[in-house]
């Protein structure tokens, strides 16, 4: 999905003068909007964990953080839209400017974080969000582009680290649950309950495992998307002097494309099924 978006972005921006790398980076960031609810795990995960054992002690914390992660995602997407709007300020009515303004207004973190993650990580995320929001507000003109990229890069990297850490935490926990479901199914099969019970329980458990597996894939895609955006932005930051120059921009675009392909490939291999 990310590769297709990248190609679409490149085609869309092919006629524009020498800011293709910024437009492509903005396009990568806009992809993050699909993941706003990626950390809403109070559904299948917490329900299942509560049913099979004592109520999961982590679930209340995960629920506390869910709203914050929504705001983080809006700040990221709003910032990406702002980047896109700044790179293309020639039209009277810029749709991306409207998106950026709207998302920036609803991206503030209103709650404190749970202690699920290292406090340094969540503090970096919170500071990162407020920095990104300050880049979203104001007019969307190319003159602001370099300064905004420079001022926002550390913030974006800190947010990416926070999302990566939360993905790691949840992915491990979900992998644990999927393994437990597989073991429960095999235990039911060799038990002495009636055949119909064994079949019914197996079918029900398999559907839960499928849903958890689907969520793990979603988390892996989120990680790939944020890592790709953060990496592309980091390249922009390092090559700011080349922005506007067609040749330098093309080289930067190649670098970004190559990194995105690598990140997406490694995200796919990172998802390994639990041992049977």
């Amino acid at each position: 999905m990310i590769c297709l978006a990248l190609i679409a972005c490149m085609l869309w921006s092919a006629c524009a003068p020498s800011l293709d790398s910024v437009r492509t980076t903005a396009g990568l960031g806009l992809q993050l909007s699909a993941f706003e609810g990626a950390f809403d795990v109070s559904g299948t995960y917490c329900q299942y964990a509560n049913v099979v054992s004592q109520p999961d002690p982590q679930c209340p914390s995960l629920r506390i953080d869910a709203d914050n992660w929504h705001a983080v995602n809006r700040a990221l997407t709003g910032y990406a839209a702002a980047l896109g709007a700044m790179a293309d300020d020639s039209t009277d009515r810029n749709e991306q400017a409207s998106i950026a303004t709207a998302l920036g207004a609803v991206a503030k973190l209103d709650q404190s974080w749970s202690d699920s993650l290292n406090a340094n990580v969540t503090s970096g995320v919170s500071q990162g969000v407020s920095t990104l929001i300050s880049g979203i507000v104001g007019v969307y003109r190319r003159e602001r582009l370099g300064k905004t990229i420079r001022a926002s890069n550390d913030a974006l990297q800190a947010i990416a680290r926070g999302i990566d850490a939360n993905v790691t935490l949840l992915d491990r926990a979900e992998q644990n649950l999927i393994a437990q479901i597989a073991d429960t199914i095999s235990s039911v099969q060799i038990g002495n309950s009636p055949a119909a019970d064994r079949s019914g329980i197996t079918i029900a458990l398999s559907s839960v495992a499928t849903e958890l597996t689907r969520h793990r894939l979603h988390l892996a895609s989120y990680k790939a998307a944020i890592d790709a955006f953060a990496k592309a932005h980091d390249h922009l930051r390092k090559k700011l002097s080349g922005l506007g120059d067609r040749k330098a921009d093309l080289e930067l675009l190649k670098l970004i494309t190559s990194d995105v392909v690598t990140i997406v490939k490694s995200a796919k291999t990172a998802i390994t099924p639990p041992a049977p």
Partner: protein
Amino acid sequence: MAIDNDSLTEVLQLAQTCEDVARATLTVAQNQLRTKLIAQDAFDQVFQDYGVAMQKARDMYYQASHGLVQQILSSTDLKVLVIQTAELKAALVNLKEAEHVLSISVGVVTLIASVATAVITPSSDTLKGAVSAATTLKQTITG
């Protein structure tokens, strides 16, 4: 103090090995139930222990990203624990028939709960407790 990625990976690996130990014990019990070496009620007990152990392993994943973990990573007790837990996993995989699977199952829960305590509230005492639980389990397995 932020935890570095290598340290985090090490603790996550320990949690994974604990999970593997729990699953290996269940596999032993499953094989015994299949060949009627143990009764269903004995298997049910092992299965319940397994559920508790998996929950404790899950707790470790949650806590592994805390800065607190940093305090125990340089501990020699942790290194011993990592080695011992890996050895236990290997011993359990090779265990085909064990009359004392219930004792092993209880030992596994005790071990994983102790490791979880050491990860969540790291101190010299909690780590020593985990190492001690690993040693006891090893003795139970080898008879």
